């Protein structure tokens, strides 16, 4: 009775897992295929947001299939040496009872990206030779440290999605029955919605609010604080963009408990859609630029008290720019594109600087000059003349990835690569 409900009501078999039927099916089929022979995909990579049962499904299927589950977590494999110790052996030798075995490397997000001292290469190495299925789990599959797992030939990649509100609602209802806690459907539906697909947090909320109650009413749940998720941002945005007073615009930031830098990005992304008169758009952008100026000053001086002016200008400043501007019709709020672009282009920028260093060695210029005055011309050559490009690639000592980058894509690079091979 002392167990937290998320433990107590953890699914014991695959059937009990909420949502993601198709993903579970694919995963189960893959696990079962090991009974016949070792498949070409020796590892599965399950990814998706927290709290939707990724770990749970592995445990449940191990149970269902009667397999021994060897479970390891990030803290166990930060280094190459450790990973070999914990997973290398298990992947090769049989246990005592000749049982089947599943090796689970959970919470891969916790593996250090840059300082992992070879943990990820070691994992890939173990996967290459494993005799038992290996399952990797992470929230953010697109993190660049997982780049080596993106090869679909070698890895079964399964995305887990958020279960529907209805699925979670049903799950919560089941728990209420087991706990003998009568509950209003409204209350449960509210909790289901609020969880935003995070089943675990839904169960947690249910315990926090319901435990010890005779009956769970809508009024018991509605007061509960929101976790910081999009709808909070949306209401702040609306207030910031349409407030009539400085106080109202500023207040939301204090009340809503959101990350200021993130909010700034949201405002920057969405502001232009909500001002249709050029002079007012200019004034609003000006206010934002002023806020940004103070962000820069904070960075430079490390004096955080200046944050108050960032907030003034990004909220009150933006709001006060409005005289008559209205959006043309209903405009949905958009996720900040800049964040997305920046994160997708990070790897590219790193590649560029590597290339710059190679140019520098050959041409007696700085990396900066190389990227500004040499690389653009090199790109044209690589796009237009494969044989000259092949020669230059050799001269600069570019590797395959770098050739593809300079050529502007795999397709364009093919001619160069084959010419290099000859």
């Amino acid at each position, binding site marked *: 009775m002392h167990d937290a409900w998320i433990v107590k009501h953890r699914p014991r078999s695959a059937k009990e897992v909420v949502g993601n039927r198709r993903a579970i099916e694919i995963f189960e089929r893959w696990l079962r295929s090991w009974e016949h022979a070792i498949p070409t995909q020796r590892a599965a990579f399950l990814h998706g947001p927290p709290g939707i049962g990724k770990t749970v499904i592995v445990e449940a299927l191990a149970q269902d299939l009667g397999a021994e589950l060897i479970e390891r977590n990030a803290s166990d494999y930060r280094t190459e040496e450790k990973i070999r110790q914990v997973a290398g052996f298990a992947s090769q030798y049989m246990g005592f009872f000749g049982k089947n075995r599943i090796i689970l490397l959970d919470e891969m997000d916790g593996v250090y990206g840059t300082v992992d001292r070879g943990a990820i290469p070691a994992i890939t190495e173990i996967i290459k030779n494993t005799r038992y299925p290996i399952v990797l789990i992470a929230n953010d599959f697109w993190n660049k440290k997982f780049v080596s797992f993106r090869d679909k030939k070698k890895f079964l990649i399964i995305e887990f999605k958020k279960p529907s509100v209805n699925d979670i609602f049903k799950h919560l209802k089941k728990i209420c029955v087991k706990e003998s806690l009568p509950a209003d459907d409204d209350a449960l539906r509210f909790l289901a919605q609020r969880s935003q697909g995070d089943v675990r947090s839904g169960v947690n909320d249910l315990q926090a609010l319901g*435990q010890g109650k005779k009956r769970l009413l809508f009024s018991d749940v509605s007061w509960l*604080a929101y976790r910081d998720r999009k709808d909070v941002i949306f209401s702040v945005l609306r207030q910031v963009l349409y407030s009539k007073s400085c106080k109202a615009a500023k207040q939301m930031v204090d009340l809503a408990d959101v990350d200021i830098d993130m909010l700034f990005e949201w405002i920057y992304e969405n502001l232009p859609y909500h001002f249709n008169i050029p002079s007012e758009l200019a004034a609003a952008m000006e206010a934002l630029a002023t806020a940004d100026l103070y962000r820069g000053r904070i960075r430079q001086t490390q004096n955080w008290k200046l944050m108050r002016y960032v907030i003034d200008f990004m909220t009150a400043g933006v709001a006060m720019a409005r005289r008559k501007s209205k959006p043309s019709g209903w405009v949905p709020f958009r996720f900040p594109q800049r964040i997305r672009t920046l994160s997708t282009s990070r790897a590219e920028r790193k590649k560029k600087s590597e290339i710059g260093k190679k140019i520098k060695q050959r041409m007696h210029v700085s990396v900066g000059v190389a990227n500004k005055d040499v690389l653009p011309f090199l790109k044209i050559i690589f796009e237009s003349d494969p044989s000259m490009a092949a020669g230059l690639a050799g001269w600069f000592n570019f590797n395959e990835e770098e050739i593809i980058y300079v050529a502007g894509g795999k397709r364009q690079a093919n001619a160069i690569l084959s010419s290099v091979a000859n």
Partner: protein
Amino acid sequence: MSSEMWAEKYRPKFLKQMVDQKEIVERLESFVKSHNVPHCIFAGPPGTGKTTAALCLAHDLYGETYRENLMELNASDERGINVVRQTVKTFARVRTLGEIPFKILILDEADNMTGDAQQALRRTMERYTETCRFILIANYSGKILEPIQSRCAPFRFTYLPREEQDEYLKRIVKNENIVLQQDGLDAIYEVCGGDLRKAINSLQAAASLGKPIGSETVYSVVGRANPADVHAMIKIAMDGNFLEARKRLREMIVKYGVAGSDIIKQIHIELFRLEIPENLKVKLAGIVGEVDFRLVEGASEEVQLSALLARLVEAGYEFKGG
């Protein structure tokens, strides 16, 4: 002058002594009743009773031996991954002897933990969930990783309403046999907002002067200028009386022992309470911000404060002119 801190002396010991955060207290009491506590996040501004609530919960749960079943850690003190890895594990590993099969670990300022430390914490929470429940205390829950948030029941603490804070202070006043005037009470609220701990500390400092406590005492003790004075000074400046405004400013600096940079902060607050058009407020914020930044860069305080007042006077001209 007693050396005991009133903030400690008057801290509630049991949940039922907590006068504020009713809904949260009620939920916590139900945890006690059912002998089951999930991992929790207590989020909210300083002085809203987060730590107090956690301690009361433990007290109610374990009774007088609660100290043995409870551990407080400050994440920002010994920040980083090692706290989590080692101290926490050691504590969580040892089983409790009493009726309740788990211990409680309070992790203060959890939002100051690095991302790595939080990742490690996430794992520890999971592994020791049977023997240890975590209460993470944070100002902003947004700074806590989602996978951890999703493992915790969230509670948001809010500032005490004015009346409740007043009641609290009045109780202390009565007990300590001091005199607190109404304007002193107002000043404390003005300075401390709903931060109860800060309010009690200020009260104690003011009391140490041994005189009836009025607003002037409070402001002088906390080294803040009286908002009414700041307000008046801004108005005088915006009415065009530059020299008088400057005189007032200097008086405030001497009278309250305030640093120029602190005066700027107060001007910033007061400015949004002025009865002037809203867009003018943004403009004034720009002026204040500029001067504030100059001071940060090391410009002369005296010169810059004059410049600030001058800009306010000019803004006043414009306002009336346009």
